[in-house]
Every structure is written in C-alpha cells, then in structure tokens.
C-alpha cells in the first residue's frame, strides 16, 4: 500500500475533531437541560425556599452509603413562618449579599471558592453555634459585627466588618439554612451536626 494510511490523514482528523466536538457538546446540552430541571428550587435535590420553615439535619444513610440532608417538622427561622414568596425574597437577599460582600474569595460555598475561611455548605448545621437556641442570635451578631464577635478557633483569622445590615444578616442566615438542605451527594463526608448527640 503506498498512500498515507487513513489514521495519518489530515482530512480524517479534521472530520474526527468536528464530529467529536459536536457530539460531546450535544450530549452536554441534553445533560444540562436534565440537570437544570432536576435541581430547580422545589425539586427533590434542591428543596423549595420554604424549607427555611423546617428543621434540617444531615445524617448518614446506610442504604445509600452516603450522608443525606433530612428535612423534619416545623422549626421556624426568627420565630416566623415564611410564605413561599417571603422565603424566596429572604433567601434571594442573602444570596445577593454573599455576592456583593465577596464571601467567595475567603470562604467556599458547596466547596467552591477560596480557602482562607471555612466552608459554608453546612454552616447552618455547624456545632460551632453551640446550641440550637443560641444559633440564630449568634449568627446575626457575628455577621453584623464579626470583629467583636470573632470566631477564630485559635487561628487569629478574623472576618472583617462588611457593613452587613440586620436584614441582610437575616437573609444570609436564611440562605445558609436553605443551602444546608441541598442534596450534595454526600459531601462533606462524616459531618456531625449541631443536632447530633455527643
């Protein structure tokens, strides 16, 4: 055989490149549509914003071999039951505030961001808030004046004062509570919540 074999031809690889790219992209588009519909707020994996009215926990599921969020009975935030629209507005304010205050360039959210401060994925459930009774009050105070309510765990790293208003602080807490209810495929592993018995 004298001609160049097929696998060494420029034209063969050109066609391969085009087909592989187009094919992969098409699969990605289909998967994207599926993923977005399965993760809209109110889906099984990403609960509705009214989940802030409920008790949230995070426990190991023996059948699934992973940690799963558990949504329980009513446990109001700031002693109030939020309607669907009120809950959405409050979480939205919190989410927008986390962006405007650039939280992600110190903290991680769902494990993404910077590594100078702790992950916020399950921050609502963290034992650092001592007890469920103290949690909301401590969080509001901390967010509004982190310098004087610093929680450095011996690291000397203090969150700076970010001019967070009381309403914004409440929004952030609602956002964190809602985020802790998302099914994150078992990440983080082995997390002991504030509800867990010592």
């Amino acid at each position, binding site marked *: 055989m004298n001609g160049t074999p097929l696998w060494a031809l*420029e034209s063969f*690889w*050109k066609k*391969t*490149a085009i087909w*592989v*790219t187009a094919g*992969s*992209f098409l*699969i*990605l588009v289909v998967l994207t549509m599926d*993923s977005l519909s399965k*993760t809209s*707020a109110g889906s099984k*994996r*990403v609960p509705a*914003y009214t989940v802030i009215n409920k008790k949230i926990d995070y426990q190991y599921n023996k059948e699934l071999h992973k940690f799963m969020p558990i949504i329980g009975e009513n446990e109001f935030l700031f002693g109030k039951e939020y309607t669907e629209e009120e809950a959405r507005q409050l979480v*939205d304010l919190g*989410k*927008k*505030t*986390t*962006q*405007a*205050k*650039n*939280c*992600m*360039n*110190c903290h991680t959210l*769902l*494990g*993404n961001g*910077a*590594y*100078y401060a*702790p*992950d916020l994925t399950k*921050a609502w459930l*963290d*034992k*650092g808030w001592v007890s469920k009774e103290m949690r909301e009050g401590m969080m509001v105070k901390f967010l509004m004046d982190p*310098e004087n309510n610093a*929680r*450095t*765990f*011996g690291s*000397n790293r*203090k969150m700076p*004062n970010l001019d967070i208003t009381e309403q*914004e602080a409440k*929004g952030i807490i609602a956002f964190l509570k809602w985020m802790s209810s*998302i099914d*994150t495929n078992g*990440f*983080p*592993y*082995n*997390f*002991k919540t504030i509800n867990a018995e010592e």
Partner: protein
Amino acid sequence: MNASGLNGVMQQTAALYEKSHVYLNNFKSWVQLDSSNLSDGQQLAVKYFIVAVILFFAQILFGMLAAIQFIVPGFLYEILDFSVNRMIHINAMIVWMLYGFIGCVYWFLEDESGTEIVGLKLGNIAFWVLTGAVTLVVLVYLLVQIGPGKDSSIWLINEGREYIEAPRWADIGIVVVMLIFFYNVVATFSKGKWSGIAGVLTLDLVALAGLYVAGMFYMTNITHDQYWWWWVIHLWVEATWEVLVGVIMAWSLMKLLGVRRKIIQTWLYIEVALMFGSGILGLGHHYFWIGTPEYWLTIGGFFSALEPIPLVAMVVHAVYDSGTHAFKNGNHPALAWIIAQAFGNFFGAGVWGFMHTLPQINMYTHGTQWSASHGHLAFFGAYATINIAFFYLAIQHWRGDVWMGGGSQNAWRWKWALGLLNGGVLGMTIALLIAGYEQSFIERAVEGSTWGGYFSAQNHPSFQNAMGWRLFFGGITFAGFILLVWDLLTIGKGETRKAPEIIES
C-alpha cells in the same frame, strides 16, 4: 476652590505630565526598540503584551499579599483584606493571560492570512476601551471593594463569583471587545487566505466568547448559579483556552523550528479531538457536590480522567518536533519556554488535575489547598509559559530579527528567569499540595469538615509550615519575574548578528 488654587493644581498637573513624558522618553532611548520593525498588527499585539506583563506583576504582588495573610492574619486587616487581594490575584491572572492570547493572535494574524488586518483602527480602539475598563474595575475593587446586597452592587462593584468577579457593566464591555477581536480575525482570514490553523482558531473563539455570556446572569438558586459558572470557568480553561494554546503553539513551532504545516495541522486536529472529546464532558467533575444528579459522578470522573491524554500528545508533539529538527532554532529562550509549556501543561493540568479528579478522592480533597496547588501549576504551566515564549518571539522581531541562539550575550538572564519562575511555581505547588493533603486528612476525613475541623487543620504545624514555604517560593517567583522583565527589555540590545533563516523541512 478659587481661581488661584485651580491654577496651582493645573500647573502641578502639567508639570507632572511633563515629568512623566521625560521619564518615558528616557526609557524609550534606553530600551532602543525600533517599532518600524513591526507590522501594524504586531504593533497592536505588543500593546497587549505590555499590559499583560503589567497585570502579571499585579498577579504576583497581590498573591504575595494574600500569602502573607495566611501567616500574619492581621496584615492589612480591613484595609486590603484577603478577599480583595485574592480576587485581584486571580482576576489579574485571567486578564493578563487573555491579553497575552489576543496579542499572540494579532501577532500572527497577518502572517497566517497573508494580508493586512481589516479592522486595525477598531482593534486599537478596542484595546484602549478594554484597558480603560480593566483599570476602572481594579480601582473599584481596591477602593470600593464591597456593596450592599442589591443588584446595583453586582452591576457596578463586584459580582462576587470567583474568577468572573468583574461587575456586569464590565462583562458587557468584555463581550463587545471580544466581538471586535473576533470580527478582525474572521474578516482578515476571509480577505486573505484560510488555513487549518485559521479554522480551528475561529471556531474556538466563537466558543470562547459565547461561553462568557453563560456567566452573566444572577440566580438565587446556588446550584444553578454554580452550574453555569462552571460552564464558563471549566469550558474556558480546560477546553477552549487549551485549544487556543494549541493554535498558538502550532504556529510557533512552524516559525521556530520550521515544522511542516501538514504535520502541524494534523496534530492540531488530533489535539482538538482529544481535548474537546475529554474536556467538554470532563466538565462533570465540577458537578459532583453542587446538588446536581449522581450521574455526573460517573460521567465527570470518566471523561476528566481522560483529560491528560491530549496533554501527553502535546508533549510528544513539541519534543518530537524539536528532536527531529535537532533543536535547531532561531530563538533559544522562546523554544525553552515552549518546552516548559509542554511539560508544565502536562504536569500542572494533566497530572495534578488527575490526582484529585475521581469522585472517591475528590470527596476529601474538594475545597482544600489541593485545588490551589493544581491551580498554580496548571495556569502557569499551560498559559503563562506560552505567553512568555511569545514575548521572546516578539522582542526578537522588535529588535530587527537579531540573533537569540547559542552564545547570546547575557544569556544567563533568560536562563535564570526561566529557572526561578519554574522553580518558584513548582515550590509553591508542592507546598500547597502538602497543605492540601493535611487538610484532606484532618479537616475532611477525621473531623468531618466542621468549622472546628477546618481550623484544627489550619492551625496544624504541617499546614503552617507549608504556608511559610509557599510564601518563600512566591518570593522566588517574584525574583524570576523581575529578572524576566529586565531580560525582555535588554535581550538582543546591541546584537548585530542576524537570526538564522528557518525554512520549512
């Protein structure tokens, strides 16, 4: 202000302007660069390169400030907090690399298309608009920093999403500038001649500009937010940027070594097939833990595990071509940086990425310094190196195609700059890897990622020592950068020998 006060200010401004003019002229006569050696497109390209180098400096500077804060947490507290330094550190990086890429393309556009750039004036306007916008964005980052939790903050100050923090107004500006750039590329190739390189470049730029738009929306739902955010970040740096670098590398190898176009373009198509074939669905490795369905564990794990393959192919390509041409080339520093790119890309993006890409491991490494370790070596190895190689190609031509082969004067400078920069980044990478390992064990595996667990890992001596070493190697990198700039400004000055003619073989 009264009239005399205003007069005084104006006089001072005029004096300052005159003084800076004198300094600029002194500098110009010192560097002795003759711009008549450059074509119009190349003159535009070097503007991009100059801003790229300035932003490279900003990247290292703010990275060092952030690195100090890991060791001395009170350093610049509530003046330039970690979040601000870190944001400028990573934004300067993204933007200088984009400036470098745009410069590279403008550099070879006329040569590759065989005609003059169609919208040169527009390209120049776009350059100044982009540079003005970047300056304004950085000033707002530094001086305003944060805003209230309202849409106006996201539009005017900071979008608060890692890597694409630029406020929305700037996003729109970036898209407009990219469209002008894209128009210039397509119109110039259409007027002149198309080639395989031209085709791949054009399609890649469509994807690159189009993807950016996916990151321009605010969403309350953080799962959706991060879903689209990764579309931009991943499909940029692990797909379209890699292909763009493949294009730049292909053209450089033709010019530097005289590799035949047919071989270069066949390789380029193979790389595109492998890169997009693994990288597009490899996006799934960012969808393990953000709330997205479980099938991403399989798809993301499988395809991202294939991502190193095209990078191996690129190493083979660069080393094989250099070998068959017995390393005969007209620009030693540029070729050295291209070889550094091939290996840096393979180790940084390929090996360091593969190490933590499988979900079984990523469960523990996600959100730790592992990612920072990978990020440092990958961005430097894949993208900083190719830009630096191109800076050397550009400066050689700017000096009138002077000799930059064996026996060049002061060759120690580029060699030491190469060694210090690569050694510095590698040192930071290893230090961060050790910190990442320690975090994975103590914070993630043992203590279950609570805040208490996070801080016991941060306070651990292994972690603290690693941060010390990271800062030290940051200093080495900084020294390498200073030497690099000095070398770029002086290399080939007073050289009378001409570069050898490299012919295709």
